[in-house]
């Protein structure tokens, strides 16, 4: 059979025993060679330095009795005193447990929902139905939490649409938006409405990268819809699923702020207090000062780092790329 491939280049120029010697280039040579790449990277480096690394350096105030009115180095170092105060605060552990609870629920009940939505969407053939459904599901992602919570209160609140309808039928008011026992369900409903569409879009993008000929070949071989999904679709988007999972695990203690803060009064602090609201009420508008809030933030960051490294390690063990290529 004729081939379009050209002949391999002759290797006769190299003697059989010759070693390939890489010339080591000096820094100046590398700079001269790679300067366009460095220029391209410069804005990002500056942005990271200004808005991430420099502020991160200020985490040191977690170990100081910091006051903005003193010269920085005159602030006394107090070791882990702020962390000690943090861990001894009886309201810290409940806030941490709430945070973990919401993070786990988000991971277990919302993440798969986005995948399922994407798969359903992917299987819809009609472009019109698909784009309409996609818009409806995706749109709430752009709503602010204030709007989301307001809509839920207006519809499901004690004086909302459903309650008043129930009252007109002789029923009782709903207490769904003020009941701490069912807040997790309410929170899940709000996540599902607001965020599931966003996750769906990402997975749809991953699905689009799967070669359609694989489906055709599988169909010809007699694979039904479920087998195609199991053997082609899910493996096709597995790297994206793993990547998003790792990123989500890394930010597990950052479950959000507005959603909980906005509903804190209605539901009560015991069910809604998460680490971010705890820091807000104790430090930002509270009286514990900046060092206390920084200590809490640092604790959160350290836990997140450990989790993300662990998850990445697991991903590598499973043969996935993770968040960075294993060298």
């Amino acid at each position, binding site marked *: 059979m004729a081939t379009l491939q050209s002949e391999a280049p002759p290797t006769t120029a190299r003697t059989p025993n010759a070693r390939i010697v890489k010339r080591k280039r000096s820094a100046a040579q590398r700079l001269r060679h790679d300067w366009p790449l460095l220029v391209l990277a410069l804005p990002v480096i500056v942005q990271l330095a200004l808005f991430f690394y420099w502020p991160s350096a200020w985490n040191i105030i977690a170990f100081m*009795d*910091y*006051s*903005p*009115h003193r010269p920085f180095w005159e602030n*006394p170092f*107090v*070791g882990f*005193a*702020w962390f*000690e*105060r943090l861990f001894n*605060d*009886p*309201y810290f552990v409940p806030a941490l447990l709430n945070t973990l609870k919401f993070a786990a629920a988000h991971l277990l009940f919302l993440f798969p929902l986005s995948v399922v939505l994407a798969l359903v969407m992917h299987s819809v053939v009609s472009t019109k139905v698909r784009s309409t459904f996609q818009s409806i599901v995706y749109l709430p992602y752009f709503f602010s939490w204030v709007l989301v919570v307001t809509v839920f*209160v207006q519809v499901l*609140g*004690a*004086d909302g649409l459903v*309650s008043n309808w129930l*009252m007109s039928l002789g029923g009782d*008011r709903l207490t769904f938006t*003020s009941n*701490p026992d069912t807040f997790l369900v309410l929170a899940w409903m709000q996540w599902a409405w607001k965020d599931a569409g966003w996750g769906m879009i990402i997975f749809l993008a991953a699905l689009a990268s799967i070669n359609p000929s694989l489906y055709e070949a599988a169909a010809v071989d007699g694979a039904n819809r479920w087998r195609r999904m199991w053997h082609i679709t899910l493996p096709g988007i597995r790297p994206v699923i793993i990547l998003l999972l790792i990123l989500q695990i890394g930010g597990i203690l950052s479950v959000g702020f507005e959603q909980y803060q906005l509903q804190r*009064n*209605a*539901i*009560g*602090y*015991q069910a809604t207090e998460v680490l971010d609201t705890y820091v807000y*009420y*104790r430090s*930002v*508008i*509270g*009286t*514990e*000062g900046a*060092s206390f809030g920084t200590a809490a933030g640092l604790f959160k960051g350290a836990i997140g780092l450990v989790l993300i490294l662990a998850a990445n390690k697991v991903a590598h063990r499973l043969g996935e790329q993770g968040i960075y290529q294993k060298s």
Partner: protein
Amino acid sequence: MPDSSSAPLRRRSLFKVAGLGAVGAAGLPFAAACSDIQTGEGSTQATEGFDFLPEYKEWPLPAEPDLVGDPPNHPSGFTSYPEPVEAVTEVPSNSGTYEITVPFWGEAPSNDDPYFAALRDAWGGTTVNLRQADGNTYADTSVQWLNANEYGDGILLFSWMLGSHTNFPETVVNSFYDLTDILKGDISGRWPLLAGLPTQSWAQSVWSTDASDPESARLYGIPSTFSGGPGNALFTRVDLMEAAGIAMPTTVEELLEACREWSDDANGKWAFGGVDWILPQLFGLVGDEGWSWDDEQGKLVNDCEKPEFTEMLEFRRTLWDEKLIHPDAPTGTLDNGALQIAGTTLFSQENPVRWYDYTTKVRDGQAEGAIVPVPPIGAKGRKPTLKASTSVDGWTFLNKDLSKEQVEELLDVANWCSAPYGTKENELLEYGVEGEHFEYDAGGNPVHTEHGQKIVQAPVNLKQYSGKVQRFLTGIPEVVQAHFEFNALCQEFIVPSIFEGVRIEAPAASKSASQTLNDQQNDIAFGRAELSTIPDMVQTFLDNGGEEARTFYTDIYKSLNEQ
């Protein structure tokens, strides 16, 4: 009001008050227990007995009030509008431009309105642009502005906003201009109206650079008006009560009955939209920062340790269980004023300013009926108690980076703004430009136009930039008369502060514990926790800052009363 020698303060010598400097600054036992952390250990500041304040020189009032009270708790009032006279006869010639940060609630007026141009021309050419920020978050965000020195050339802070700051004395002495050298002694030549402010006002504008050293006290703020009397009241729609045949309650028990008679959950009618902060005083819980002296126990006790605290929570829980309060009350976001106007709720907890506002709305056809305050009432046959704050409303602090000349120019403006009711300056400041922001009614009283309500009446603007020589009840004559009579009625029930003459910043731990206690109260009030948990929540409060606070406040109390 003449000067600082008001009755409640005479019982203590200045020496005792000056000795307070050491309390809370460094020597408290609990502070040492918190390792090396000194932030948030609390502080005290004497607010009387200084020899470096502006010398008081009475500024004769241009008109005598129609209703003569006993300021500050019972201010005098005007039921007719006096012919305004000129207060500042020698207007300075200035040209500086400054930016002052002020809060606003509702709609922020444009700096380009003719009102501000008229003010600039009237007080001598100084341009004061307002940097307006949302009043609902102002107290909290002001902490960051001050830390970053991003508040322009000055900032207005109401006294209730200081609670949001962790270590306000440190902020004051590091961020604001020390006015002592400029304002010390006789200032009546250049600033006669500032010299006419009560000495108490100036004394309450003092902070110490070193809290443990009374000698380091300095003057840092331009005081707003010195106020007193009941700052809050329980208002009711009297027309709705009459229509429903409900009598004005004279006890807390009658109040509950009135709530039951009025409320109809199925038809969207409730007695209250919110009741959390007016209720404690109805049950006699009027401790200063929650603390009051108990002679029997011989110690300071917190409101939450009293049996009345349980009674109050039982009352709140009854409101919830019997559906006498709006079902969305737990959200804390209800517009109680609007609900009361709509007739959805009967009662509202309000500042008396609301009385004037409501009456204006009725006059303009935006509301119906009338509201009046419920007279002082008590529970279980006890004598009613009322809380009154006799203090300056707040301060304008000037940026430490200003030059002396710039500060003097801003003090020229402050002097102009201190002109009391019955002067042309006050008329322009409080009512704006005639024909544009206000008109005279048939009785000769100035009445804001719709534009004037938006630009002049509603926003804070510069009306609180500096205090008036004397505060009066002014506005709609019939409301002034009724307000004056209400204040007279309240006098016998006002419980004086046990910490008069000292400004206290509570330890951070006790503030946090109080916040949690407040959250837990809401849990009980809205059915999320049982009444039986009250002893536990009180114990939690005491274990996590309450006992520390008791030690802190006891030291102050003893310093004031037992030396």
